[in-house]
């Protein structure tokens, strides 16, 4: 059975949501943190309900609804989300109040919206959707876990029109803590110059991207999602990639474009550079994290990028590292998160 990406919607630090062009006007940020460009949420969410919603919920509900609108689907057969940190804004709010108010007379709102399944739950609530609904929280493969579940549901013929998204919000507290943990650069950098900085650390990011997966063939589909695989601490990532391609009856020569998860951290990017000298030597290469920053479900941005490249046949210049000029039909996304979690996604033009 073939799995198609019917539609996609993405809120990111770039003009990706309801944008006219396809990353043809990249937004530059100076610093170590990229924040999303906020759409007019009123178009998607009742302003009365919106007051109680944190950033991640607003992004999630808006992209989910936009994705359904684009697909012309009112009721998805399943709603599946991936997020590593979940609803950080409400979590931090509640933690702060516990301490500041000495555990007495706390308001419940932040707590009830702090659970990791809140985004998927709020989407279900908005749509009055009683179907399969779940949330994966496995660090750098949270989004891929959601995709694997959705593809399995399609193959089991348990559901169709499956809405799948990755959502992550960066709040001041998490940015500060992750900076102290050494994830980000110690000096401001232009995101558009990220790969020329050659230093330790990356830049933080956030965003939400939703996709509608279907088994129904249509000329309106964006692309087909051939396969998704996660690898945890693999012995050899090159062997893992080769095995993945082989299991899909492909070799590296069949791949027209590789989208890598390079994030500008010299240590992190060694893995990709080694592959570019070996297995990926003859492949066109694109990168994306200078546009959206590093975050655990950033691969959802990469999938949005790949699906739109497959549909349009054009590769936005801002993502190109090495190009051949051929319009890509078969795209491999390879991302790793802190060199522990590796993921592979195969996207093809329809």
């Amino acid at each position, binding site marked *: 059975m073939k799995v198609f990406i019917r539609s996609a919607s993405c809120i990111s630090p770039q003009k990706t949501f309801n944008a006219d062009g396809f990353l043809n006007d990249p937004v530059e940020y100076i610093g170590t943190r990229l924040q999303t460009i906020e759409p007019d949420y009123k178009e998607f969410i009742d302003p009365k309900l919106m007051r109680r919603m944190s950033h991640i919920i607003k992004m999630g509900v808006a992209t989910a609804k936009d994705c359904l609108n684009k697909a012309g689907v009112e009721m998805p057969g399943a709603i599946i989300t991936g997020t590593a940190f979940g609803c950080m804004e409400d979590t931090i709010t509640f933690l702060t109040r516990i301490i500041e108010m000495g555990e007495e007379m706390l308001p419940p709102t932040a707590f009830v919206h702090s659970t990791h399944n809140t985004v998927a739950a709020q989407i279900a609530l908005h749509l009055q959707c009683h179907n399969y609904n779940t949330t994966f929280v496995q660090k750098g493969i949270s989004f891929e876990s959601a995709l694997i579940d959705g593809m399995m549901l399609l193959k089991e013929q348990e559901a169709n029109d499956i809405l799948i998204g990755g959502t992550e919000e960066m709040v001041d507290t998490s940015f500060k803590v992750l900076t102290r943990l050494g994830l980000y650069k110690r000096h401001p950098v232009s995101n558009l110059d990220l790969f020329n900085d050659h230093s330790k650390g990356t830049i933080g990011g956030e965003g939400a991207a939703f996709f509608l997966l279907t088994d129904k063939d249509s000329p309106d589909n964006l692309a087909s999602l051939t396969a998704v695989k996660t690898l*945890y601490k693999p012995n050899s990532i090159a062997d893992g990639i080769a095995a993945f391609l082989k299991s899909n009856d492909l070799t590296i020569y069949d791949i027209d474009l590789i989208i890598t998860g390079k994030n500008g951290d010299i240590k992190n990017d060694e893995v990709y550079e080694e592959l570019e000298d070996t297995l990926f030597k003859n492949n066109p290469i694109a990168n994306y994290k200078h546009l959206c920053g590093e975050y655990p479900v950033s691969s959802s941005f990469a999938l949005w990028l790949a699906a739109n490249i497959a549909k349009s046949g054009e590769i936005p210049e801002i993502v190109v590292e090495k190009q051949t000029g051929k319009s890509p039909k078969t795209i491999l996304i390879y991302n790793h998160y802190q060199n522990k979690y590796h993921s592979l996604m195969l996207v093809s033009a329809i």
Partner: protein
Amino acid sequence: MSSAVYIAGIGVISAIGNDVAGHLESFKQEKEGMGDITMLNTVHRGEIPVAEVKLTNEELIKITGLPANASRTSMLSLIAAKEALADAAIPGFENLRSGFVSANTVGGMDKSEDFFKEFLADNNKGRLRDVYDHECGSMTEIVADQLGVSDFLTTFSTACSSSANAIFYGARLIKSDMLDIVIAGGVDALTKFTLNGFNTLLILDKEFCKPFDANRQGLNLGEGAGYVVLVSDKVAATLNKKPYCKLTGYNNSNDAFHQTASSPDGTGSYMAMQGALKKSGLQPKDIDYINLHGTGTPNNDSAEGTAIKRVFDPVYPPMSSTKSYTGHTLGASGGIEAVFSILAIKHGIIYPNLRFQTRMDELPVEPVKHFISGQKIKNVMSNSFGFGGNCTSLIFSAI
């Protein structure tokens, strides 16, 4: 493709025992695990009862061998998952494709709380090692490494239905031939975050909880972990002992009513139970015992009771909420109660719903009040319903 998925091993830790044998003993003695808070550093000590695992962090570190700063969540998870895997004793485990699918709701929050107090006073303070494993997925990663499982791992977080979702996801991974073995279930440790969270919702009983009782006042929070080892039919055939049972039915439906409250007619619960029955090919009359979600809150038990009436009326199987023993262990409850459901089939036992006095209006029957053994139990339904409308029912069936 494996057509059936078998349960080859089980492991559990909660306030009423540190392993399966300890639980069976507490059940027989009708001894609940609730009491005053002794470990959590909170102002609610002496005021709100909880069901703590009867081991301090220091004792857990000794037992598990995890680092001194390990989250209680990871330690509880490791103990139960290890017990389950040892119980399964799968020949040639190393050469089979194995996965660890876990679940929890607040990950390493117990340690993050310590960090955050200092951090809030000064953003450059707070020991980073206390916040390093904050994420839910970190707990799974730590335990998977200890179990020697690396082919596949993931974590569910759907509030109180988390580990029920993990269990049937594990079964689906086996059925779709991605894996041969999955250790699946979930964990949660008591934290100030959840204690205060539930307290703000005014749904914590100041006495020991009375699930499904007309005069119920709320839930008691608990902690623990429960895991099952799921195997394909091929692996089941190689086992040195008979598997416990099969997982035959499962369904995940959403109530889509309110972020925290259940709909009055229990729409999500009803759909989850009906869906699980349909998946298993069973009729309501085939169910020999229902392990209720039965938190003890007025809202949950009313919605669940109403949904049970819609599914089962007029013939009701015996039912009880084992949360009257363990408290509500949140993300762990589906895993812990799956283990209890499996033990009910294996030993022919039904657990009492402790402290039950008065039948509630929503149901024409009462839950089981005393421990019963010598029953012939073929099919058990286990319910797990949570915030966000996430409702999941599982059905375990004798072989």
